[in-house]
């Protein structure tokens, strides 16, 4: 049975992964906001003297779905910047893992139904109990890596923070304020300027008449292909299966089967893991991974200023060894056991 006291024995090791992801196709990360752009083109023409404003649509403008951004206060002004929220990466990894490693009958175990859905809540509880009863359903792996949420009223239900923590760096560009619109530069007076962006348009057609679908025309901002994102993963008290799973994520990202952001149906969010580096830091008396022989003990680290430097052992994990850990994953998925039947 699953024990949600993940750190009862303390923290004995940390697996650190650094990815540099290259956008092989454009990437769309929405924040639900609509901003405005103006096009001075006359009737039957388009894209003349384009201007983007990071504010709500005005009477002369058109709406465009914004790209996710954050901001910080520097002195007397607010600086905004685009970045990929860690939750987007986490969501993509979690969703891929659930879809591939968990039996569909157990999906309700890993999604919280609305509070007013009594049947859904009951189903969720039953599925979760069944899923966590045995290790080979995959639920334990998902619960321990990504965390398990329970409502305050569900004291009897397991809950824990995940062992996987994700951080992302903001895009590193500067002075990239204009937005490309089909080869035409759209000026912006404000807003983020740290990544190359494009404004895409979609204009669905009526299948009977081939006229534009009323209300269908819409625009959105996206990160241009060729841009890179830096992602840092940290897995506390890693297991062999965790390393195997990271290896699978890398393969699937490179194949385009695991995508970041929205609109995968029109090819957005395909990544290439352009650079990857892995380290395992562990206490001297930490339990050894079964695949310990794949690791390489190293004194030097790119993180020589890390708080753990000189205290814990540091092992380099060569990227090519990760797939070898996939064998250990089988114990935690076991072919996605269907426990819905008694």
């Amino acid at each position: 049975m699953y024990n949600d006291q993940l750190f009862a024995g303390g923290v004995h090791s940390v697996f650190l992964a650094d990815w540099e992801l290259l956008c092989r196709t454009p990437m769309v990360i929405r924040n639900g906001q609509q901003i405005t752009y103006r096009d001075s083109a006359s009737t039957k023409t388009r894209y003349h003297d384009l201007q983007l404003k990071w504010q709500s649509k005005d009477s002369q403008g058109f709406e465009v779905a914004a790209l996710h951004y954050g901001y910080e206060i520097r002195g007397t002004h607010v600086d905004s910047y685009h970045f990929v929220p860690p939750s987007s990466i986490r969501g993509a990894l979690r969703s891929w893992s659930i879809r591939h490693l968990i039996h569909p009958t157990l999906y309700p175990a890993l999604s919280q139904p609305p509070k007013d859905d009594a049947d859904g809540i009951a189903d969720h509880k039953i599925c979760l109990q069944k899923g966590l009863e045995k290790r080979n359903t995959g639920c334990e792996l998902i619960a321990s890596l990504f965390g398990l949420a329970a409502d305050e009223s569900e004291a009897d239900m397991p809950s824990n923070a995940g062992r996987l923590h994700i951080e992302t760096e903001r895009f590193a560009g500067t002075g990239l304020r204009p937005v490309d619109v089909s080869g035409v530069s759209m000026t912006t007076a404000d807003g983020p300027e740290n990544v190359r962006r494009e404004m895409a348009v979609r204009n669905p057609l009526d299948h009977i008449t081939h006229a534009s679908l009323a209300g269908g025309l819409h625009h959105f901002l996206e990160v241009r292909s060729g841009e890179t994102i830096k992602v840092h993963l940290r897995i506390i008290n890693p297991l062999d299966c965790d390393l195997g799973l990271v290896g699978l994520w890398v393969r699937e990202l490179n194949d385009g089967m695991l995508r970041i952001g929205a609109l995968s149906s029109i090819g957005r969010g395909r990544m290439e893991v352009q650079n990857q580096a892995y380290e395992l830091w562990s206490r001297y008396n930490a339990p050894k991974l079964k695949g310990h022989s794949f690791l390489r003990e190293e004194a030097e680290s790119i993180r020589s200023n890390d708080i753990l430097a000189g205290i814990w052992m540091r092992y380099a994990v060569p990227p090519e060894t990760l797939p070898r850990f996939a064998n250990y994953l089988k114990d935690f998925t076991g072919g996605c056991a269907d426990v819905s039947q008694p």
Partner: protein
Amino acid sequence: MSHNPNPFDFVPFPSAPILRKEEQFDALGEKFSGYLEIEIKALTPVHVMGQVEDGATERKSSFFRHSGLPCIPASTIKGCLRAFTEALTAGWVSRANASYPKEFGERHVGFNAFESYDPKRGNRRISPPAIDPAFKPKANSDKLDVATYLFGTVIEGKPTEYEVQSRKSKVWVEDAYLPLEAITFKKDWWAPDIGGGAFMGGAKPSASNWWYFEPARVWERNLPGHAPVAEFVGEKFRGRKFYFHQNPAKCIQKYDHKKGEWIYTENKSHQRTFHPVRLECMAPGKTTLRFRIYLDGIPQPLLQLLKNIIQPGEHIRHKLGYAKAYGYGSIEFAIKSANLRPVGLGIPEALELRDVSVVNWDMESLAEYRIAEFIDQKALTWLARILSWQPHEDLLFMYPQYRAHEFKQPIRYSEFERKMAIIKMPASAPVIIRSHQQGRTIAEALWDLKRPIDFRLYQEKAEGWDIITRREP
């Protein structure tokens, strides 16, 4: 005087959509995920609209660009494949404008796509739904059509009231980029247009004629200061529209204001309003860079069907982009490789190269691959008629003009009565059309007064129609 067929025609609706439960689709066979690598080859110049700039005498439309390269957007490719799928497999009409209300000076007969329409004023005749509501996507049904199973439903922008709930697509299409040298402006690559309004009035279906609509009635319509005219009221959309392939260079010459046969009316300043749009096109013979179409858990028979939809046999070719009515946008997809894996429970395998062959359209082959049950054979026949790529046939397709004896020609009700008397048909308004044949007989009787009354008759009387009817998949 003979005429050219209209540039588009309709794939008629079958009696009911082909629907299955999701579990039935899922159970069709082993499922596969992965991607197909594909190239698009232009058969005629292809134009996807990017920036459009106005000049003194002409307009210039650049090819759409993305990430610094010319590009056929994924949504364009996906839309093309989905529209074909919906027609071929008797699917729902996933995208249709819901309402065309009666509007003074614009639309005399209002109608709705999937619901009855009550004009609430004037002639209170209720227009029945233009499309059988059985073809309206259903959010709450336990069944769905092939296209929705494969392509999902994404509510983008402002959803119309009938759209089904969001459903993830199992087919992910990426943008198809072109090398810069594949596109260019050429003096012969243009599309006709006029200043101001829309050329040909845009794609505005009217229930006041039998063009987009099946014949239903003939009304006596009173116009201020004029004798009453016959109004040919239609009721049901004829089907799903597709454009014929043709040679654009030959076609657009006919629309040229100097050497063509198309008459451009003058505007108030007595200037001809001809205002061509120069098109930056992907040149015929050029191919896109390879792009990918991803598949996410598609059962073997539907994977085969999808491959056939992408490469629809020996004769059928797709069209996409702008100015399809003038011959632009004829393309050929070529599946170059397939990297797939079976979908099962447990740790997914790595992708592997797989077979990319397509099946013939004959019933035996379709049955062998278990896709015959999803094909509307009549639709396939019509798709072959409309989308057959047969350059040697040298057919030309042109819109009827807005001039005497064509679209502009009103038919006085007294003339209509006279013609009906000759063919011994009742003419007291409203004349209710009971069958296609009756509508056709009426249109035939009026042929010398006005040719484009009944779309089907107009097509069947056009030059080369016998060749078109012999086309096969």
